[in-house]
């Protein structure tokens, strides 16, 4: 979901950015190292601890066999990412090791991890050097729930007032939310016009069914749909969107495509600098 945190975690331990990491939603696991490892934890602050003492975030650190990595509770954000040098080994499906629970493929037997599982490394570690760190000023600000969004194909189906509600109104992430998408509560959007023919969707699309409650599509979104899409969240804001939990307030700020591309490039440069 939070590709920035996922990639950063990999780069901090010297992995290729696309290695498999562990995504931990709202609650973190209790992990025991079976041997010496270089580890990084990024994304949500779930209060990570190494043998009970606070563990650093956005920083590569060493653990030795028998060490325990635990998480005490959620302080900020929704999803933490754990990377180890060497990457986690997962089943690959359609070129990805991601777990896709709906069809039971990828990751570890296509399911969420559970107590007692053991996870292997995918390859020999490239680096064993701890201390690589992402500067505090360069870490995403997960506390600011303003998502930049670009007007979408059906923006003209909203009248002036509707557009004002979309870009400026307050929404709340409902409890009917998962990796496919978030239902947003609060303001409703009245879309005019005929039914839309189904078309290919993209992550970040805000789709509005006839009831007017928007749905923000996330990583596991359906690939096609027939609801109007008045806005699409900018790539640079998707990490913040990925860190929203049910009950969180969220709002959209309108940006141009050009501005969104600039923001995206800036985030990619931050990751590129970690590669060095």
């Amino acid at each position, binding site marked *: 979901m939070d590709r920035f945190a996922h990639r950063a975690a990999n780069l901090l331990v010297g992995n290729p950015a696309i290695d498999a990491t562990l995504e931990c939603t709202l609650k973190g696991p209790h992990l025991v190292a079976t041997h010496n490892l270089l580890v990084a934890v990024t994304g949500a602050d779930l209060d990570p601890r190494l043998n009970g003492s606070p563990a650093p975030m956005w920083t590569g650190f060493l653990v030795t066999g028998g060490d325990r990595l635990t998480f005490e509770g959620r302080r900020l954000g929704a999803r933490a990412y754990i990377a180890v040098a060497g990457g986690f080994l997962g089943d690959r499906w359609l070129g990805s090791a991601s777990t896709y629970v709906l069809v039971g493929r990828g990751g570890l037997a296509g399911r969420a991890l559970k107590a007692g599982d053991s996870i292997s490394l995918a390859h020999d570690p490239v680096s064993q050097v701890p201390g690589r760190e992402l500067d505090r000023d360069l870490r995403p600000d997960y506390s600011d729930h303003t998502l930049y969004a670009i007007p*979408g194909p059906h923006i003209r189906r909203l009248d002036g007032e509707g557009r004002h509600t979309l870009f400026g109104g307050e929404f709340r992430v409902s409890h009917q939310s998962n990796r496919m998408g978030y239902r947003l509560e609060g303001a409703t959007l009245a879309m005019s016009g005929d039914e839309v023919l189904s078309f290919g969707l993209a992550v970040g699309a805000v789709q509005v069914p006839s009831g007017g409650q928007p749905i923000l599509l996330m990583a596991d979104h359906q690939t096609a749909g027939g609801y109007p899409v008045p806005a699409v969240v900018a790539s640079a804001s998707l990490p913040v969107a990925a860190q929203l939990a049910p009950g969180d307030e969220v709002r959209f700020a309108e940006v141009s495509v050009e501005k969104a591309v600039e923001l995206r490039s800036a985030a990619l440069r931050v990751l590129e600098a970690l590669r060095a």
Partner: protein
Amino acid sequence: MPAPPSKKPRAPRVRIHPLGDSALLAELGTKLDTALNTRAIALADNLKKRRDVRQAVAATAGVTVHFDPDLVTITALGAAIKRLATKRPPVAEPGRLHRIPVAYDGEDLADAAATLGLSSERVIELHTRPIYRVFLVGFVPGWAYLGPLPEELELPRRSVPRTLVPAGAVAIAGRQTGIYPLATPGGWHLIGRTTVKTFLPNSDPPCLFRAGDRVKFFAAPTG
């Protein structure tokens, strides 16, 4: 002042809409139409050859293009798409034909027939008559939008979607029909079931149907 009459037949007007900063929707039209769909599939195939295009998804009457904003701007790609779309698409080879056995014992068959003012037998006869076209593959893995459905069978979606539709259910809604590939929620009217697997997790792509394929249903006692 009226526009001067143009001598050349017009290619469909293409509208380019941004779909975020890394994707766009090229809209060729707004109708469920085989000719538009053929153009959309040809355009998507053409776009897949470009280095700056990551994926091009043909839909009923448009193409969603995922591109790399580091390699091309949306303006430049949009202009290229408009040029490509003026080309007459090559004469499409007929898509592969799939014959699908259906046990017409769906939970909604009697209700749907009553709403339509038809007998269940007539619904089955009408549903098995056309060779449907695969307009779009998507939604969940294995799902394909098939159509057009005969006008006599046109129904709005159920007012309350089911929370769980079994895999293999054959359903209708609007001018379209489809087969549920997985047990998922669904708002279409269930008229039958088939044992044919449309989601093939061990194949790549993992779907039986491809856009442009043809599908013919026939009644079989066990689906």
